[in-house]
């Protein structure tokens, strides 16, 4: 009975949503703001990937807020899960999962450098090809995940993760503040370097630098989240 009421209410909601969106025809050109972005991105900023130009430059302040949200998620998880040390035994109990097989371990060791290089490539070429800091950071976190699930004794040093994260965040903010001082219009995250020519690695000015910083920050945050979750049983205990 309860399910029937919910289903009928959802059908009404779905009908009105579909009715609303059917008015916006699929595949119709309704760009207004984007035309400005698509025009300025190759001419003024010399950035080939328009999505990168929007994420890092035109809407760069939102990206700063977003990496802050991700940082808060990582910190909050640490607070929620790992607050109490084990009271019952003095020493840290081992992770209860069995050791992964030799095949997984060997393949993990073999694939790890390749995944690192792919991730670094994706965020260094973020302004030229599809990809960027978020994608590259996620790929690098996948590489660390592979090592975390195949080796029981593998540990991510939280000290270094925090350092990398803080330094990347500081780089982002200080590039933004330098834009206020050195940029021609004195606004946050403004380009103050030579923009170069389109479709070259050195093009884009500060956009490439900011996206590399975002890549390091996202990689450190996601690795921290995964390490917290994988190591739950080692430090946290039932209270």
């Amino acid at each position: 009975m309860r399910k029937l009421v919910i289903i009928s209410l959802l059908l009404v909601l779905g009908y009105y949503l579909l009715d609303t969106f059917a008015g916006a025809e699929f595949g119709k050109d309704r760009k207004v703001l984007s035309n400005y972005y698509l025009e300025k991105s190759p001419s003024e900023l010399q950035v080939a990937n328009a999505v990168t130009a929007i994420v890092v430059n035109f809407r760069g302040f939102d990206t700063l807020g977003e990496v802050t949200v991700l940082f808060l998620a990582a910190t909050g998880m640490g607070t929620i899960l790992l607050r109490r040390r084990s009271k019952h035994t003095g020493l840290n109990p081992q992770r209860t999962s069995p050791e992964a097989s030799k095949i997984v371990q060997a393949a993990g060791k073999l694939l790890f450098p390749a995944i690192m290089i792919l991730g670094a490539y994706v965020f260094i070429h973020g302004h030229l090809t599809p990809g960027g800091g978020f994608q590259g950071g996620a790929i690098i976190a996948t590489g660390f995940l592979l090592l975390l699930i195949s080796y029981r004794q593998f540990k991510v040093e939280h000290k270094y993760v925090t350092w990398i994260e803080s330094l990347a965040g500081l780089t982002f903010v200080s590039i933004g503040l330098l834009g206020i001082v050195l940029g021609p219009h004195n606004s946050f995250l403004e380009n103050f370097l030579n923009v170069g020519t389109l479709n070259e690695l050195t093009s884009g000015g500060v956009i490439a630098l900011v996206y590399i910083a975002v890549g390091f920050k996202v990689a450190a945050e996601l690795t921290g989240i995964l390490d917290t979750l994988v190591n739950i049983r080692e430090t946290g205990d039932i209270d």
Partner: protein
Amino acid sequence: MDTITLLLLFFSLIVMIGAAVYAAIMKDLIFATIGTSLISLALSVIFYLLHAPDVALTEAAIGVALSTIVFIIAIRNTKRYEDEK
């Protein structure tokens, strides 16, 4: 859009809806998690077909790999079946 693109688009949409239903009704939570990762896989194909390669790359890396493993770790630390007490 040519015919092959359209066929692939419709196929991916059907796979996505099927996986969503599967993930919503499955009692075994591990299977439901595999359903969500299948949604992400179909979704990244659809994003690629709709000319959004950046979003497709993000969805493939985060939705398929990281999200699934986070769910599986959470299930390993709690209960595997939905009705289990």
